[in-house]
């Protein structure tokens, strides 16, 4: 089985936000919930880079560890998913997440949070693949269709890579060798406790 990862090549990312709207489009994510976002570092200054970020589907995911109700699980593809039936919206996973991935719809009084929502790596949830229930709660399940997350598939400059960790690391490596520079695989050390060695 593949070990699925995301890699954003910041030397290609131009903050076009296609990944953000592709995600909204694919899963009908409502206003205010951003499963993916693009952050620009050093904005307006030489050295500026933009990085697209969502759930990185960490190795030994902190969100899963701190969850008081153990609603997280990791698939055979190493995708970190969760069950909205079990989630209680406590917010701990957000405190633990190094990437700010968990999102909570506001559903009640004094800012109380609804069930957590995050990037599913376009692979749905615990319900049966392609079931209506799965689609309603988590959005579509592209991985089960043999497709990869739409954000990466639609990335305008092919900066955002998705797929087996070793393969996308290899693609990134080739690029860095070809062009002679690279600002690194953002978040890999934190998420996967490894970097792409060039």
């Amino acid at each position, binding site marked *: 089985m593949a070990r699925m990862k995301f890699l954003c090549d910041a030397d290609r990312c131009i903050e076009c936000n296609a990944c953000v709207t592709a995600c909204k489009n694919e899963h009908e994510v409502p206003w205010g919930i951003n499963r993916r*976002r693009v*952050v620009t570092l*050093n904005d307006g200054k030489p*050295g*500026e*880079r933009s990085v697209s*970020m969502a759930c990185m589907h960490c190795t030994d995911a902190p969100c899963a560890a*701190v969850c008081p109700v153990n609603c997280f699980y990791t698939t055979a593809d190493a995708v970190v998913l969760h069950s909205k039936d079990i989630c209680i919206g406590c917010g701990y996973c*957000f405190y633990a997440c190094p990437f*700010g991935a968990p999102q909570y719809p506001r559903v009640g009084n004094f800012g109380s949070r609804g069930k957590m929502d995050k990037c599913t790596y376009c692979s749905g949830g615990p319900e049966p693949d392609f079931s209506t229930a799965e689609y309603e709660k988590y959005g579509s399940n592209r991985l089960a269709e043999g497709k990869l997350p739409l954000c990466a598939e639609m990335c305008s400059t092919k900066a955002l890579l998705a797929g087996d960790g070793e393969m996308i690391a290899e693609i990134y490596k080739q690029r860095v060798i070809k062009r002679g520079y690279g600002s690194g695989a953002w978040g890999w050390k934190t998420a996967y406790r490894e970097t792409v060695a060039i």
Partner: protein
Amino acid sequence: MRRVTTLFSTLLVAAMLVAAPAAFAPVQAQNPIQADGQNPMGARPTADSVNEELLFKQESKIRGRISIPDGKAANLIQPQGREYQNFRERWLPWIGALAILGMVAALGAFFLFRGRIMMEHSQESGKKILRFNAFERFTHWMTAVCFIILSLSGLNYIFGKRLLMPLIGPDAFGALSQWAKYSHVYLAWPFMLGVAFMFVVWVRDNIPSKVDWAWIKAGGGFIGKGHPHAGRFNAGQKGVFWMVAGFGAAMGATGLMMLFPFALLDINGMQVMQVIHSLIGIVFIAGILAHIYIGTLGMEGAYDAMGSGKVDLAWARAHHDLWVEKEQARTGSGPQLKGHPAPAE
């Protein structure tokens, strides 16, 4: 609000609970390459781009600009989540278990050693004196009920998945936890109200005095014979009062921060709040266990004070002699069986 924040900062520093040096650090990253305003000529954006390593040297997390209004989304990477995870999953369960089970064990040992402290009889036995009026008792019990539910639902956040979930299965546990969360969120309000009421009603009688020192030196009468002097509340009770007031305020404040996440704090602030909330909560629970013990099982006659509100005059004379004298002087009569309850003041 500012005072609240300051309080937290103080608490944070004082407690030195976690290593989160960046929580309130200045937010603006320094730029590795300075633009010279008009024409940053010679700057080679490609070669000199920012990278993770460099940015982590400047700050403990990587922040940038984002166009959506959600400010916390501007944090790209914040590895402190791993430290938080470490605390919550590796340390907190042990701290919690040790504190609570430790207190239970200590109380058990004390019970074995000392047994139940029995009432001493005198000619005043059988006469009653009003110790807590209806409002005081209402406040106490409202707070107490809330506290118990908050404690259980709170402990569920730490121990539920370890103890309960294997027993009842994930679905039932999920539903239960959901209700636990709602009760935790909603009962926080009456609890905070109760703590506030108790503070106002009882603060006057809980100001430490010389008598308390003597009481402590005498071991509070738990050890050995005879009762040291005590006012309406003895030093032990004052301790409980200040614990409830202090911890209650801290729990309320940190809890409010979590009820309104990111209203005042950033992600590291939220982590710190969660850590403080859980640690104080555990100590609080342990402390209240002792309070419950002494108010019920540990001492005969103590429960009546919060039960009916009226206590045996002999018991009162023994445990709160100064208060009884003052009370009798004030009313100019013997035991009060009828008449107005003491005003709450």
